[in-house]
């Protein structure tokens, strides 16, 4: 960075600091580390969705080869992983609750021998009847296995009047169910980790989003202080939430293996192993009951939100909460009742995935709104715009929208670029051409006062005598560009070139805990702490060497009650509008996306190029979720297990996108920036389905919707304007 660049607006794109090492191939990923004397581990997992382990028949283990299982947990240690809840077992013990549950590790010096031994292990089960889908879970198929009712977690929100009373005075009360499926993260780099004993502590190298989460999660296995575990993040090749808690499932068993053998132990998943045996986006089912007057105006809405949590709760209650908070989308409705149910099933536990529960309910409300509009013969955009939420309006948790909502400005940008109004009028339903629109938001950072009450983020900055400055916090680079924008923020505040700033992949023994790299919080929360630290360093610049520390402080006057979920859930939302245009081949049902236009409000942008990357990736990942990314769970087994049958979009599938932004600086963010990484995923799927549904003239209530499904809708689907 040259001095001149510092005088430009911070939004001006700069070359990513990791660009060269990643394109040259010199960046060191976890499987690139070479530790002498390190053992290989392979996981042995449950092959049945539900059952009692009757017997484990092991081959004779040669010298230096080990079987590591729950029985090796030392006295005082716990057989669980702490991932918000503590129900996820480190190793299955006695019974198994899902296909892929960890039973043990085979560990040894030669990886071929380890694999040969693993293939010889025979596990005998007494199989039980599994519940796999949401409906089977709710019906307690095979008998309840969680809480007597298979409901892991539950919440209820109400605004305005009691909806049942309002329904009585409605002209009509309609019901509609909207469903969404699994989604696999398909990070470029599959999961992998090493655990190396060093003196009286253990060092973990992992491809991971949240180094401090790993420490906290696995320390109970050996009943040791988390400080005795040092986590060093290796260069991480993508995550999307799939490496927020899931690395714990590798690291817990590796820690025990290192304890048992006294040696370093490493484990890497191949792609099929990773798809079959890792967490996914929660499948969902949202049942709306909406009360309308004779003109089709919404008087009350009741929504029941069901998420398929899988066998263990882990972090899913928080996902469900976010889902329920976002069920009103970008709208204010007069009277609402929302109930969320986290359903226990015998499937691989679901976990974080870009959007963290919000995309499911946002897809549901957008789609439901379209169907209400069409049923009353109103253009969907016109219908939706009657309910747009504004600054000061009530949210689903009886808080207020704090910031200015720039939906009208964003709408104008995308309408003009896409020529939406003309096309919406011209493309008659069922003629093979369609244009669709969706509105969405994403609450930035942890819910309510969670940043202050739970995370208590800290950031340090160290000035060295030679004028270099080191940023110390636990935020990770995983491809999203964070380790470029943070030095950029510091450089702009300090007025020094970015080359003078050191910002390394976190090592928990060196950096303070600034919280997880998740929840669209890193830029708005930690970026702000870095900005403040840099301001302090600048004031003391003449001192030779010193360190400053900044702490998160929640702004006053925005109360939140975590026990009742009432109040200001989020201080800053990202907002988005997306228009998608499609054409359908009448012979085959193949869909060609002709155009994608979006506008996003991420506050004041820190780096335009990085933001463009987020928009391009997020929007297409959202359309993939809604279209080709079919992931079926058949009797507890994922049916699609490779990149050739789990169909993520390619760059050939979509045209060049046009993206717009609005300038809406966020009061408490660095340089006015707020969260954006998840927002960009949240609405493109709904816009795509709206367009597709208009093109074929049929109502679509479930995603994904691949080619063959489009054909079935064309043949047997319900007409788009039919009454709900």
């Amino acid at each position: 960075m040259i001095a001149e660049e510092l005088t430009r607006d911070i939004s001006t794109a700069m070359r990513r600091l990791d660009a060269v090492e990643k394109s040259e191939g010199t960046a060191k990923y976890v499987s690139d580390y070479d530790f002498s004397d390190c053992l290989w581990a392979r996981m042995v997992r449950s092959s049945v969705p539900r059952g009692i382990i009757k017997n484990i028949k092991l081959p004779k283990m040669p010298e230096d080869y080990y079987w590591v299982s729950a029985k090796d947990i030392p006295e005082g240690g716990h057989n669980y992983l702490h991932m918000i809840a503590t129900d996820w077992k480190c190793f299955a013990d006695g019974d198994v609750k899902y296909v892929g549950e960890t039973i043990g590790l085979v560990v040894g010096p030669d990886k071929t021998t380890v694999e040969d031994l693993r293939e010889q292990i025979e596990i005998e089960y007494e199989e039980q009847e599994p519940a796999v889908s949401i409906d089977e879970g709710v019906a307690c198929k095979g008998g309840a296995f969680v809480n007597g009712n298979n409901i892991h977690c539950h919440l209820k929100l109400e605004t305005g009047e009691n909806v049942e009373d309002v329904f009585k005075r409605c002209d009509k009360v309609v019901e509609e169910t909207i469903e969404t499926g699994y989604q696999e993260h398909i990070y470029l780099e599959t999961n992998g980790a090493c655990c190396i004993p060093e003196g009286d502590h253990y060092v973990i190298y992992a491809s991971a989003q949240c180094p401090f989460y790993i420490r906290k999660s696995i320390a109970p296995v050996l009943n040791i202080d988390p400080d005795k575990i040092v986590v060093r993040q290796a260069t991480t090749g993508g995550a999307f939430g799939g490496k927020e808690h899931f690395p714990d499932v590798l690291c817990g068993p590796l820690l025990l293996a290192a304890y048992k053998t006294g040696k370093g132990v490493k484990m890497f998943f191949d792609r099929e192993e990773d798809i079959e045996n890792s967490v996914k986006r929660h499948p969902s089912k949202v049942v709306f009951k909406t009360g309308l007057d004779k003109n089709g105006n919404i008087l009350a809405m009741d929504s029941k939100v069901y998420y398929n949590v899988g066998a263990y709760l882990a972090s899913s209650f928080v996902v469900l909460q976010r889902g329920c908070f976002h069920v009103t989308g970008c709208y204010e409705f007069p009277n609402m009742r929302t109930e969320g149910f986290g359903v226990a099933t015998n499937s691989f536990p679901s976990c974080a995935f870009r959007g963290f529960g919000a995309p499911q309910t946002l897809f549901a409300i957008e789609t439901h709104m379209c169907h209400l509009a069409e049923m009353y013969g109103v253009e969907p955009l016109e219908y939706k715009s009657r309910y747009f939420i504004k600054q000061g309006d009530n949210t689903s948790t009886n808080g207020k929208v704090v910031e200015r909502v720039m939906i009208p400005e964003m709408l104008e940008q995308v309408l003009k670029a896409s020529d939406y109004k003309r096309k919406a009028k011209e493309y008659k339903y069922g003629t093979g051409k369609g244009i669709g629109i969706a509105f969405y938001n994403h609450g930035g950072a942890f819910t309510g006062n969670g940043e202050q009450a739970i995370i208590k983020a800290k950031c340090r900055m160290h000035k060295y005598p030679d004028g270099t400055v080191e940023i110390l916090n636990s935020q990770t680079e995983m491809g999203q560009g964070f380790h470029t924008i943070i030095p950029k923020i510091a450089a702009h505040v300090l007025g020094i070139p970015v080359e003078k700033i050191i910002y390394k992949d976190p090592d928990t023994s060196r950096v303070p805990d600034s919280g997880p790299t998740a929840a669209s919080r890193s830029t708005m929360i930690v970026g702000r702490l870095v900005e403040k630290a840099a301001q302090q360093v600048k004031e003391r610049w003449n001192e030779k060497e010193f360190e400053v520390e900044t702490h998160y402080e929640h702004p006053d006057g925005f109360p939140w009650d975590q026990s009742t979920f009432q109040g200001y859930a989020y201080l800053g939302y990202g907002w988005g509008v997306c228009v998608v245009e499609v054409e359908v081949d009448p012979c085959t049902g193949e869909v060609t996306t002709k155009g994608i236009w979006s506008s996003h409000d991420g506050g004041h942008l820190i780096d335009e190029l990085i933001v463009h990357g987020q928009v391009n990736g997020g929007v297409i990942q959202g359309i993939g979720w809604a279209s080709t990314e079919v992931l079926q769970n058949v009797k507890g087994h994922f049916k699609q297990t490779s990149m050739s049958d789990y169909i993520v979009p390619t760059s050939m599938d979509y045209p060049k996108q046009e993206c717009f932004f609005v300038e809406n600086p966020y009061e408490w963010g660095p340089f006015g920036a707020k969260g954006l990484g998840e927002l960009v995923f949240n609405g493109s799927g709904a816009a795509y389905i709206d367009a597709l549904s208009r093109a074929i003239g049929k109502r679509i209530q479930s995603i994904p919707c691949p080619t063959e499904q489009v054909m079935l809708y064309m043949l047997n689907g319900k007409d788009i304007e039919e009454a709900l």
Partner: protein
Amino acid sequence: MEETKCYMPETLAQALEIKSRVDAIVLAGGSDLMVSHKRTIGLTPVFDRPVMIIRNLPELRKIRVNEKGECCIGAACTSAEIAASTLVPWHVRQAANRMGAIGLRNSATIGGNIANASPKGDTLGPLYLLDARVKLQSLKSEREVLVSDFIVKFKTLDIKPDELITEVIVPYSERDFDYVFWHKVGTRKANAISKITVSMALKFNKDDTVKDFRLSATATGSKTNRSRDVENIIIGKKIDTALIEKVIQAFDEVISPRAMPEFRRESTRRMIRRFLSECARHPNNRVIETYDGYHMPGAIDPVF
């Protein structure tokens, strides 16, 4: 685990000699075999028989036209080579051009695509359509057999342990027809496996009756489907709506898709209807349906 014994002959004669005494698995591009035999990261694939790699046999890497004017494609020619050669009939080039991803097309071979005998094999629909034959050679013998007979059923070939597929001979090309059609419904627009592929070709007599009509479909049963009986319904007659529907109905009875049957049947019906009703209009454009996305230079244009 035992190590796999691997042969790497340098000439066809050496390969046939090895085949005469060793029942070796023949590996050309490896894009099917290395995947189906892989173990986890960093481990060598394990085969239960010796492997003979024929990738670089010069005799198997040529594309030529024989004295009868038939296109002969060496069994170890890659999809990329086939897609780029205008000697190769249009339908075959189309299929080679959209097989998998670029990297795969640089290694996968036509011999391998046939030998894999998958109902989804990309080149099989065009090869069935154009009466293609495989040449099988052993130390002692040489024979030719129709691809459609060579693939006996799902993953099963009419081949003897000492025989090697050396060439694929395609006797017809787009020049033998007035109108051609090829449509692959892939899982996505690139790097895709076929959900269904329909290949068609038609030639009129001077009096507007149909001289020749051919239709094949992949991924619609345990092997690629083509039926002379169905084609004969329309041959010698003028195309009309009733006749089109008769062809559609008859072909529907030929195919037996197990997964996604409604989709596969209906899209096949609609594609046949589209092709035949377009042909009946005698449009100037002789390519009724093709892939309009990225293609290898020269891969897409027909040579009439």
